[in-house]
């Protein structure tokens, strides 16, 4: 169990968060750069002392008024983007380092290290130096090293971000398997990748400018985002405004029609959320069924998997909305940045959610 309620200031930046996680739960922390993710990790690891508040993991108070447990007595494991294996030790020596530091005898520590290495499918790498390992292998050994101390809290800081497209899914699957096996370890995962959160996390927490702007079960938060940031990393389009009978009314009076969720209250802030693939682009104003048609300008074209993602600009509320088109469609339309176009979205494709406060 994690129980956190802390504030900490670093220069102009201030982090003020309050959250809890159930025993064995994997919590993903999402947020744009500068949102306070690393600051939060530093506080959890004990590298940074909170100004006020308290922090407890598995019933043990780590930070409180007059209490600050130093990193080496916290029982936290840290796995970051860079494996940071000690270059002067073998893979086995790296994994045995934690148990040795905690006072386990050499032989017992090496035995435990071997067990963890085989747990991460790296038993055959035991005698190699980090320099002789690939990035994915290093990260596996680093994972074994972080787990070998049996941490009460495991901190994963963008652990797959530096791996290539083949190594990342393999390691993600491995982390999932290992975390399932050790149910008494509390995990906090910082990531930019919604896939990490979907595969690994039970719950997500979205940070922005030092505050929690959204939290809840992973699938709920990512499929019904309430903030532009969450929508962007979930790969969804989001338009914010005020709830009205048809959907959402934006600042200039335009109405975005959609399907209203149960949590929408008339006149309260609400967001309209839809998939970029549901957005069609027309050169002329389309006639007929789509109720949502907005004039916009093509801002940029970017490859996105096997489609082309078209970023658009328009009035403030519309800027940043994207449309996914096939390469053939983009070629047919002859789209280039700066073109004036019309975006069309069927009302049935738009979900409307209520949000707390203004954004």
């Amino acid at each position, binding site marked *: 169990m994690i129980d956190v309620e802390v504030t900490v200031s670093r220069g102009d930046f201030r982090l003020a968060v309050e959250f809890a996680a159930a025993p064995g739960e994997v919590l993903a922390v999402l947020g744009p750069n500068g949102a306070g993710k690393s600051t939060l990790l530093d506080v959890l*690891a004990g*590298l940074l002392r909170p100004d006020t508040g308290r922090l407890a993991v598995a019933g043990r108070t780590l930070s409180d008024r007059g209490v600050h447990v*130093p*990193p*080496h*007595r*916290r*029982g*936290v*494991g*840290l796995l*970051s983007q*860079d494996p*940071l294996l*000690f*270059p*002067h030790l073998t893979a086995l020596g790296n994994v045995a*380092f*934690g148990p040795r*530091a*905690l006072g386990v005898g050499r032989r017992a520590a090496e035995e435990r290290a071997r067990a963890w290495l085989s747990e991460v499918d790296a038993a055959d790498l035991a005698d190699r130096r980090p*320099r002789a390992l690939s990035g994915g292998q290093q990260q596996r050994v680093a994972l074994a*090293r*972080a787990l070998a*101390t049996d941490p009460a809290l495991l*901190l994963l800081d963008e652990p797959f971000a*530096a791996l290539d497209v083949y190594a990342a899914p393999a390691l993600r699957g491995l982390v999932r398997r290992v975390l399932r096996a050790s149910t008494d370890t509390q995990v906090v995962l910082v990531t930019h990748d919604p896939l990490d959160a979907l595969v690994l996390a039970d719950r997500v927490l979205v940070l922005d400018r030092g505050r929690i702007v959204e939290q809840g079960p992973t699938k709920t938060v990512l499929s019904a985002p309430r903030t532009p940031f969450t929508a962007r990393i979930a790969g969804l389009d989001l338009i914010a405004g005020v709830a009205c009978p048809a959907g959402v009314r934006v600042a200039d009076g335009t109405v975005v029609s959609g399907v209203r969720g149960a949590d929408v209250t008339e006149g309260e802030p609400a967001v309209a959320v839809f998939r970029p693939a549901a957005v069609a682009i027309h050169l002329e104003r389309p006639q007929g069924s789509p109720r949502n048609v907005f004039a916009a300008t093509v801002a940029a074209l970017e490859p996105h998997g096997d489609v082309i993602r078209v970023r658009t600009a328009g009035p403030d509320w519309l800027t940043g909305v994207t449309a996914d088109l096939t390469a053939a469609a983009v070629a047919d339309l002859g789209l280039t940045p700066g073109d004036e176009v019309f975006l069309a979205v069927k009302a049935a494709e738009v979900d409307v959610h209520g949000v707390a406060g203004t954004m």
Partner: protein
Amino acid sequence: MDRRARRESADRGRASTAVPVLLWLPACLALALVVLPIVGLVTRTDLRRFPELVTSPSALAALELSLRTAVASTVLCLLLGGPLAVVLARAHVPGIRVLRAIVLLPLVLPPVVGGLALLYLLGRNGFAGQFVDFLFGVRVPFTTVAVVIAQTFVAMPFLVVALEGALRTAGERYETVAATLGARPWTVFRRVTVPLVLPALGSGLVLSFARALGEFGATITFAGSLEGVTRTLPLEVYTRNETDVDGAVALSLLLVVVAIVVIAVARPRAVEGRL
């Protein structure tokens, strides 16, 4: 990532094989400036009398004193300069940049000025000298201890600079990881920090030793030139040159040989341009 960067720089080195012709002439002159004096020294040496010259009692006394004091000051550099480098690289205290600059002072100061400064600090009228005299009844200048202090003064920056650079390059991230694994600060220092900077420590020590062995200006000002007490090898060469040029040349050659051995055996990384 590190390895890739290194390979790229190696590739870049290969791509620039075409050195502009214009640079060859000054480059050769520079090399000649380093090599020719040594050649001159060798040709001037009476090689048949070399063993006899370098084993004269005064030469042996100077050699022994030089080795003893250079080893002692290298140990002092390690015991004092090592921790200083760690503090300079890791401590978060205001004014640390100024301290870093001050540590470099002996490196750029003429050694004779350093010797004078030491003399006025630890001499009969210096405030520290009076203090030591009063407390222990000991006078430091013109003793073997003074030789060690003078050598440490000039040699320590070599170790501090090499070590501090390596510590800052290595960064604190390995140490952070070690701490999260349950290692106490002293364990982190012993099992992570020191092994990471071991190569730099080795080359820093070798450079300090070489600098201490060659020290002349600060020693002669602060410790004088008393045979067997403060007359180290460089001072012996200087003294001998007044009366016995052959002996001075032979001893010089001995110092050259020692220097080449130091470079060949220990290969300080600074010399290879990888500090």
